[in-house]
């Protein structure tokens, strides 16, 4: 890497060197011929050499600059002017001192720069490794979540095929029902994963269009009912029409995830309620269940899902972690907020979406 000084670096080095030396020459000129203090000329050049060593790459510019400085000091600013005279008193010392200073500065700065680079690279590697670990965790969690229903489907279907002539109609219906349940669950999972690709695809940005929140909620509830026809959902909408810029598919996914979360984790068959309201600058969605609530120690990182529970226990087989963390990702991409909490009657999940300017595209 050291040998291949790029053209850009070369130009930069030359520019820095020329600039510093010119500046030093001007200052010295002023000192000697206007101010009349020839003693400080060497110091001025020394400073220039130090600066050059600091701001250029490699040793060469510093050494070249010190050589030029020595010649300049001797030729221009030392009597007899415009004559080279290296035999002057103490001159070799000035010369050597300049050389040594420039070399040391160059060496130090080069070394520092090199170390900085190494530290940077290490940090990047570390971050990459962390990302990699997160991805691996996510993948592990997903594969686990995918395998569970698949095992059920394969097991139930092969048991049906092998034993269907000895089974009662009821048993058959039960097996097929299980297959359907597992398959539906897989579908939600896959749609969640697809949602994530919809966000990641364009740098955590979403394509928004103005949508009416009540329409989005009612479609989400409709789709939710296809899977859970027996769970009651009560929707309350404000009297006025609230339009919010959003990616409706993703927001629907959030609502469905939260509804399913209520079904799986509230341990209650009571109706779930969705309340829409409009507040200063944003639309607010509250999803309440009448269940057992959320354990307080899980509240703080409930949306972090897979990252904080790399070895998730069996009871979370319904993949609550991934569903909620996807909700968080989606809402964050919309510049909204999402929170979870407990009320006296159960858990409540609240998310908000900014209304945006009243843009008419």
């Amino acid at each position: 890497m050291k040998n291949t000084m790029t053209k850009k670096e070369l130009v930069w080095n030359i520019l820095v060197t020329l600039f510093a030396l010119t500046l030093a020459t001007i200052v010295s000129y002023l000192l000697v011929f206007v101010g009349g203090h020839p003693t400080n000329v060497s110091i001025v050049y020394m400073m220039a050499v130090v600066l050059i060593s600091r701001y250029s790459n490699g040793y060469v510019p510093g050494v070249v600059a010190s050589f030029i400085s020595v010649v300049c000091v001797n030729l221009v600013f030392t009597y007899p002017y415009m004559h080279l005279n290296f035999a002057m008193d103490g001159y070799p010392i000035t010369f050597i001192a300049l050389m040594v200073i420039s070399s040391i500065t160059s060496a130090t700065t080069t070394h520092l720069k090199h170390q900085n680079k190494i530290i940077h690279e290490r940090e990047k590697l570390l971050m990459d490794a962390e990302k990699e670990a997160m991805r691996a965790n996510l993948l592990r969690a997903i594969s686990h979540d995918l395998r569970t229903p698949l095992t059920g489907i394969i097991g139930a279907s092969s048991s049906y095929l092998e034993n269907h002539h000895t089974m009662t109609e009821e048993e058959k219906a039960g097996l097929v029902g299980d297959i359907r349940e597992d398959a539906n669950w897989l579908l939600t999972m896959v749609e969640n994963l697809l949602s994530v690709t919809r966000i990641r695809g364009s740098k955590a940005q979403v394509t928004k269009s103005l949508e009416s929140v009540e329409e989005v909620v009612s479609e989400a509830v409709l789709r939710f009912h296809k899977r859970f026809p027996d769970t009651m959902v009560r929707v309350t909408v404000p009297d006025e029409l609230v339009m919010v810029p959003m990616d409706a598919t993703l927001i629907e996914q959030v609502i469905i995830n939260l509804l399913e979360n209520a079904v799986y984790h509230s341990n209650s068959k009571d109706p779930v309620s969705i309340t829409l309201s409009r507040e200063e600058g944003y639309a607010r969605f509250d999803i309440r269940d009448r269940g057992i609530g959320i354990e307080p120690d899980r509240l703080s990182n409930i949306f972090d899902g897979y990252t904080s529970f790399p070895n998730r226990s069996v009871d979370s087989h319904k993949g609550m972690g991934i569903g909620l963390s996807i909700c968080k990702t989606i809402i964050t991409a919309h510049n909204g907020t999402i929170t979870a909490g407990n009320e006296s009657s159960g858990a409540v999940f609240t998310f908000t979406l900014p209304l945006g300017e009243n843009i008419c595209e």
Partner: protein
Amino acid sequence: MNKFTIAIIEDEKNILSFIESTLQRHDYKVIHALNGKDGLAIISSNCPDVILLDLGLPDIDGMDIIRNVRSWSAIPIIVISARTQEQEKVAALDYGADDYITKPFGTSELLARIRTTLRHGKSTISTIDGSVVQAPYQYKGLVIDFVKRLVTLNGHVVHLTQIEYKLVSLLAENSGRVLTYDFMINHIWGPYADNNNQILRVNMAHIRRKIELNPGEPNYIFTEIGVGYRMQESEY
């Protein structure tokens, strides 16, 4: 009684066989093709009553098939599409598809779509006739009498503005079928209307508040996000 013939163009054998067995059980005659080329061939040689078309075929783009079929026939086409591709659905409808069904779908949904499409295949012919009196729309408590231009909900008259009535009757005449935003705007406000669909949303919100018990849980008019609206199929 002669059976309706349904052509299925779908490259996934499992999906094909599930659709085929469902339809055969419900007394439809089914023909199928696994790719677009064969699909066009069976359509032109059999002239089916409905075409079920999967958009993701290996050889020909689904849109090209729709265009090709529309160039010589008005056979109803139902597009089978994935949920996230609203653009694709709208494009398919613009190209002349009659409706779409989103993967994954249940058998009841599929049968309802086919029924609706077949019915509309007939109703377009009868409206040209003109003298036939249009049957009212009726579902649960909602009745729309197109002759009297009257909407009643559980026996009570619902007061709608001119535009609102036009929207509801447009949806009811096409009940069970999705209507795109653009189609509705063109139809109600004319071709030179601003195609910003906010005015449509506002009117739909008003209608919902007038005819739905709870606007958040509609019984009659459903939203197909990113595409348009669909009214519950009439009980007649």
